């Protein structure tokens, strides 16, 4: 992969500018980063993208760490000849996380007082409830791009089966997320999903 230094700035700018659009949190941004990293620039592979998200979910902490994993894999792919992959991966991880957090944190810090004072105003309520409907749509696209991107629908019905079964289990039960991920990992490890 041919990544030059200025591409780091492009990536950091992408994270920083998307930060203030993360109305529904990090998950709602996944489709946008999928479009950016894979469709537009081809800087990450589909499997790096989805496994980064999976690892972030399997590990404790805020969902925003999924975005940091994109930086991790970008750094991995951007490592110049002769340098440690991990050094650049960590650099990508940290830089992307900082860029993703800083603008929205500053905005929150400065605007909180205003929102607290006006939280009963119809405009603020309409903003929150109106956007909720759109944000849920964007979150559904997130799971769509993870499954669709990585696998060819016709040849990997098993993937769709696992994803659909998970949806039903999340919907109907309170099974801990780690159990579901562990079962997925075991099924995948047996090789029934095919080789990649």
């Amino acid at each position, binding site marked *: 992969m041919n990544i030059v230094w200025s591409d780091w700035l492009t990536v950091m700018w992408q994270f920083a500018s998307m930060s203030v659009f993360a109305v529904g949190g990090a998950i709602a941004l996944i489709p946008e980063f999928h479009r950016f990293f894979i469709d537009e620039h081809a800087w990450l592979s589909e499997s790096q993208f989805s496994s980064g998200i999976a690892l972030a979910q399997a590990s404790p902490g*805020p969902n925003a760490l999924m975005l940091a994993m994109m930086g991790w894999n970008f750094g991995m792919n951007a490592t110049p000849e002769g340098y440690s992959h991990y050094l650049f991966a960590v650099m990508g991880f940290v830089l992307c996380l900082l860029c993703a957090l800083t603008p929205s944190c500053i905005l929150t810090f400065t605007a909180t007082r205003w929102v607290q004072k006006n939280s009963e105003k119809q405009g603020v309520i309409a903003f929150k409830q109106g956007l909720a409907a759109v944000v849920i749509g964007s979150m559904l696209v997130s799971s769509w791009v993870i499954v669709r991107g990585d696998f060819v629908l016709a040849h990997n019905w098993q993937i769709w089966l696992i994803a659909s079964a998970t949806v039903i289990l999340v919907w109907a039960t309170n099974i801990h997320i780690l159990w579901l991920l562990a079962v997925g990992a075991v099924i995948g490890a047996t090789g029934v999903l095919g080789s990649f």
Partner: protein
Amino acid sequence: MEQNISPTQARPESLGELYWALTGLALQGFGGVFPVARRVLVEERKWFTPQGFLEEWAVAQVMPGPNIVNLSVMFGARFFGPMGSFVAVAGIFSMPALLLILVAVFFEQFRDYPAISGALHGMGAVSAGLIAGTSLKMASSLKSHPLTFWGAISFTVCTFILMAVFKFPLIPVLLVMGSGSVFLTYLKIKHRPPSKDRP
């Protein structure tokens, strides 16, 4: 903000206590930290009253950025100003980030083994299901939406189609669908008196 704190209300005594409390709760949170945050901050530490927590959470949701990050910023600022915000955000991210890096290094070492790469794909499929399941649960809360369930869900569906099928980027979709939805919601609730017991 200070006026919300009653004199008897418990509070973090130092930046260090704030940091470790948030680190502790972040390390217990899988697939999002919100349920743990509520338990630790309200029930265990008693730094929030239940009502106070819901109010802060409602504000955190309106702000752009991950809700739990916004909550940390607001929570840290309430007790220690800008430094408190910084320490709170560092608290929820530093240890989980370190742990995730270790996990990622581990998987990177063994990525070439078919069993490991297969396991990652299996987990990817589960992740997708987890996100969709969570979104659908959220969608059921649209039942009490001012635009009615079907009105709100049609914005959800249009957003999905625009982004998944037509591959529109997020920002234009958010601007067009979002402002449409917010505007219609506003028209609907404009004449309603502000009430405390809204959903």
